[in-house]
């Protein structure tokens, strides 16, 4: 690595354009949001920056807190289910031969790259009133009718537009986010430690919980953060799969900008989400540092 002043022209030539772009189109907009979060509505469109903390106090109103709490609960459940679903997949990818490994990686990556809206719509076509599951139920119903059982008329089950649907949607959308960091961490793991544990008489379960999980802790932390943050800030999933009262924080933010027209409060909510993101990433680096010590301690 070279010091920048040893090659000034080349340094500025390569560094300037992206940095300026980043400052103008990312830093300035985010700074604007931050400043607005200390503002007050003044008439219909004008916002006056008064340095008030009113918007942040507003966050602690009961209805707003409830939405926040709901978002956290739903994102947490989705993240934990993703972790449970993804861990065995990551283990399999780690210990598979090269060909199987790249196939599994491709199969996990494909949905990850597929348009989010399309995936959500696909889920609707499975869970909807006319979806696959209800078609299956209808089939069973007709079979029972044909068998001479009196099961009444078929009512399609309403699987969509509730909190469970949102959680299933969040899991569906974010599962690949969890697999990849887990796999990256497990792949680096020293296999002789697992072999030693098995040789010394620990079972597979004990080895998993006492050797593999602690060693993979940085990967688990990364996976949790990478899944939880977008799940908590998800807009489309609750919007399309949830009912009118199943708000998550992103839908609340959107309302401040479109319907409610309270930009300062919307800005404060956005920054709340930013702060949560930053805290989680700080926690992740902490676990990374801690995990690093465990794996080099032998």
């Amino acid at each position, binding site marked *: 690595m070279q010091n920048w002043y040893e090659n000034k022209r080349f340094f500025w030539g*390569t560094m300037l354009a992206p940095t300026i*772009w980043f400052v103008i189109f*990312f830093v300035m907009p985010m700074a604007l949001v931050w400043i607005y979060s200390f503002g007050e509505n003044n008439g219909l469109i004008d916002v006056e920056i008064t340095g008030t903390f009113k918007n942040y106090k507003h966050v602690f109103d009961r209805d707003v807190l409830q939405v926040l709490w709901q978002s956290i609960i739903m994102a947490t459940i989705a993240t934990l289910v993703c972790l449970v679903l993804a861990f065995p997949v990551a283990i*399999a990818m780690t210990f598979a031969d090269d060909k199987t490994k790249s196939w599994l*990686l491709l199969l996990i990556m494909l949905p990850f790259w597929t348009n989010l809206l399309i995936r959500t719509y696909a889920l609707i076509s499975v869970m909807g009133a006319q979806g696959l599951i209800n078609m299956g139920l209808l089939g069973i119903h007709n079979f029972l009718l044909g068998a001479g059982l009196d099961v009444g008329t078929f009512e399609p089950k309403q699987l969509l537009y509730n909190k469970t649907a949102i959680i299933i949607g969040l899991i569906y959308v974010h599962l690949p986010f969890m697999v990849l960091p887990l796999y990256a961490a497990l792949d680096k793991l020293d296999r002789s430690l697992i072999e030693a544990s098995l040789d010394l008489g620990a079972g597979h379960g004990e080895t998993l919980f006492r050797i593999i999980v602690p060693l993979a802790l940085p990967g688990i932390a990364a996976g949790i953060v990478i899944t939880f943050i977008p799940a*908590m800030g998800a807009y489309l999933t609750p919007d399309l799969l949830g009912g009118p009262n199943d708000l998550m924080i992103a839908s609340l933010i959107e309302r401040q900008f479109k319907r409610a027209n309270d930009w300062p409060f919307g800005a404060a909510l956005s920054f709340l989400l930013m702060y949560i993101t930053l805290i989680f990433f700080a926690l992740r680096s902490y676990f990374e540092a801690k995990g690093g010590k465990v794996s080099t301690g032998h």
Partner: protein
Amino acid sequence: MKNIFKREPRAPLEYTKSLRLRAWILGVLIFLYTPLFILIAFSFNDSKRMIEWKGFTLKWYQKVFENDGIREALANSILIAIACTLVSVILGTLIGFVLWRFKFPMKGILESGLNLPIVVPEICMGVGVLMFFSKIHWPNDLPWPLNLAQITIAHITFAFPFVAVVVRARLENFNQELESAALDLGASQWRAFMDIIVPHMAPGIIAGALLAFTLSLDDFVITFFASGPGTVTFPIKVYSMVRFPNGGLINAASTIIIVLTIIATVIAMRLQEQPKKNT
């Protein structure tokens, strides 16, 4: 595939041979893929209603290409994605290179700052972009294709840090002596950059370009906030159609996008596997 559940003797670490693990993975894959297969299957269904299968048809595809709204949205999306890819690749490659090559004051801040567009929830960036463009009184009534500039700028802003990450990862195994050799032999700094470093970065650049293209094509939330009235991209069109289902039309349009995605993903993964084979 047929002997996926065959029992074989296994060594301790051959977890892939465990039946329970195989069943688990199969379950996860079914969960991930059933909705997509249903979606694709029903794009060939000759019925207005999802629930019944009435026979094979290509009419929805024909309708997609006859539907002016969808065509316009697709054209807008692809145009934005191309512009976004071109600019993101340049910006991302440059900054990925700078972070790998130079030490400079406040480097840590820039480095973690560039991670923010990747990690911050989309809604936050969407809000920022919306406020920014309204604050600087960006004109909303520009003629096509200039009215797509707001969306394109927003897309570039979140796409180029991804390109930077990919390019930088690729540079990690670059032998810096090659650059020194070129400089010793009289090449100018830029010449060495274009002739030695850029070719080495090429697989990373192409993978980054595909990533930028897909990210741009995929984005709904930021576009939703950045777009002026009357500018429709493909995801925004699909969003409005999901609310009012109209037979296999969305399914057909989605299938086209899924196929494009599969092609891009396979190419990108092939390219990223390459360096392992070379070294």
